[in-house]
């Protein structure tokens, strides 16, 4: 398990994930390179979350291979993920961040300063001592972002980070993602909300039934979708 100099680019080479006779991801070929945010778009069950889990290294492909900076089996040292429903440790908000800093091997002397910075970044400076599980859904999502960023990642995966949030909370989370992207952290986000994809994406990967149906620059995807599925999805039709 040699650590590569960078965990990017992440390359999927014919990645298939099957479980219990169901193919969840089907022969995925995809490169995630540094740059503008990549948004995975597609209906529920299209394989977005599974793709993120494989990219994070939480799930092994049944077939095909995935490499991080050219190497296989790279532990997640410089990647981080925010799950759709993040699990909050039964500790204060600040202690959640300190836990992540400790797990990432950040020197203890820096913990207090980094914790304050991260809480500030996600707009929760006043809630440091609040029990994490007593925070609202939007606050928990922002704390999960801070916890992920505590690892000082070069790539950040987000699984429908705003799916259950109201517009104000959604805007707060989207603003943080923009700030993160400006710090040269590669953002890879799954969403089924194409308004959100339009607001954030530099690059779009559209999944349907475990396959990539269309991938490319966001501008051309939204202005001139090439495939029937993408046109249907953008037109607001129900893609089943």
């Amino acid at each position, binding site marked *: 398990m040699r650590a590569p100099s960078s965990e990017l680019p992440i390359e999927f080479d014919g990645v298939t994930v099957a479980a219990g006779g169901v193919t969840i991801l089907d022969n995925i070929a995809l490169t995630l390179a540094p740059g503008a945010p990549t948004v995975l778009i597609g209906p529920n069950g299209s394989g977005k979350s599974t793709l993120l889990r494989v990219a994070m290294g*939480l799930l092994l492909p049944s077939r095909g291979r995935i490499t991080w900076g050219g190497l296989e089996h790279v532990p997640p040292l410089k990647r981080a993920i925010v799950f759709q429903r993040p699990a909050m440790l039964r500790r204060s908000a600040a202690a959640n961040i300190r836990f992540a800093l400790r*797990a990432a091997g950040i020197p203890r002397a820096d913990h207090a300063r980094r914790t304050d910075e991260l809480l500030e970044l996600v707009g929760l400076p006043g809630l440091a001592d609040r*029990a994490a599980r007593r925070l609202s859904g939007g606050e928990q999502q922002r704390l999960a972002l801070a916890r992920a960023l505590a690892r000082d990642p070069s790539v950040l995966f987000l699984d429908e980070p705003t799916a259950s949030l109201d517009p104000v909370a959604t805007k707060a989370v989207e603003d943080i993602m923009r700030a993160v992207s400006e710090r040269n952290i590669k953002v890879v986000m799954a969403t089924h909300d194409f308004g959100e994809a339009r607001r954030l994406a530099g690059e779009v990967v559209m999944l349907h039934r475990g396959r990539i149906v269309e991938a490319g620059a966001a501008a051309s995807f939204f202005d001139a979708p090439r495939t029937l599925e993408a046109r249907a999805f953008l037109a607001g039709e129900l893609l089943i």
Partner: protein
Amino acid sequence: MDQDVTALQLVLSGDPALFAIVRLSLYVSLSAVALAALIGIPLGALIALTNFRGRQGVIVMLNALMGLPPVVVGLAVYLALSRSGPLGSFGLLFTPGAMIVAQTVLVTPIIAALTRQTIEDLWIEYRDELTAMNLGPFGRVAALIWDARFSLVTALLAGFGRAAAEVGAIIIVGGNIEGFTRTMTTAIALETSKGDLPLAVGLGLVLIGIVIAVNALAWTARRAGERLAG
């Protein structure tokens, strides 16, 4: 009614013999719970987090051992500690040490089984996050035990309840020697068979009071902790 008055007087008078009995009972049961926690919590966490052949069988066994009959444990510990037994050279039989050993054997499965269940439920919730943080096995166990600490208090209380209430094991290995190995439960058994019901009732009231006090204390601590940590 007379009996109740005498019992109450005994309790209130602060009789030194009664005080010694209460102190020994607490010493034996709390020591046993502490030892059982040192063994049972890591053991339960280990079973919760590892996969091995026969794991299901071990879990069933552990759950079954929660119902170990105290007299059988007393007999087994007696045989082990008796002069000709494998641990006879320690000279523990008929000492408070032997009673602690017996109650530790009784309580460890309770704490281990409840810990296993608690940690396993929490692991299902935390698995993805802790794996994504690239946390090693030791870090996982430490994080899970710490975050389950309030639920684990309940496991310790269950163990303490078991230890404080049992008489079968400690009467066999301790011998109910006055001033040395006599506890509240063994004294109640003795006084009842002798017909000194006021003393028996008095001791019974004290025992129940102590169990309630310990539980109330733990519950308050748990509530206060949960308010702070969620």
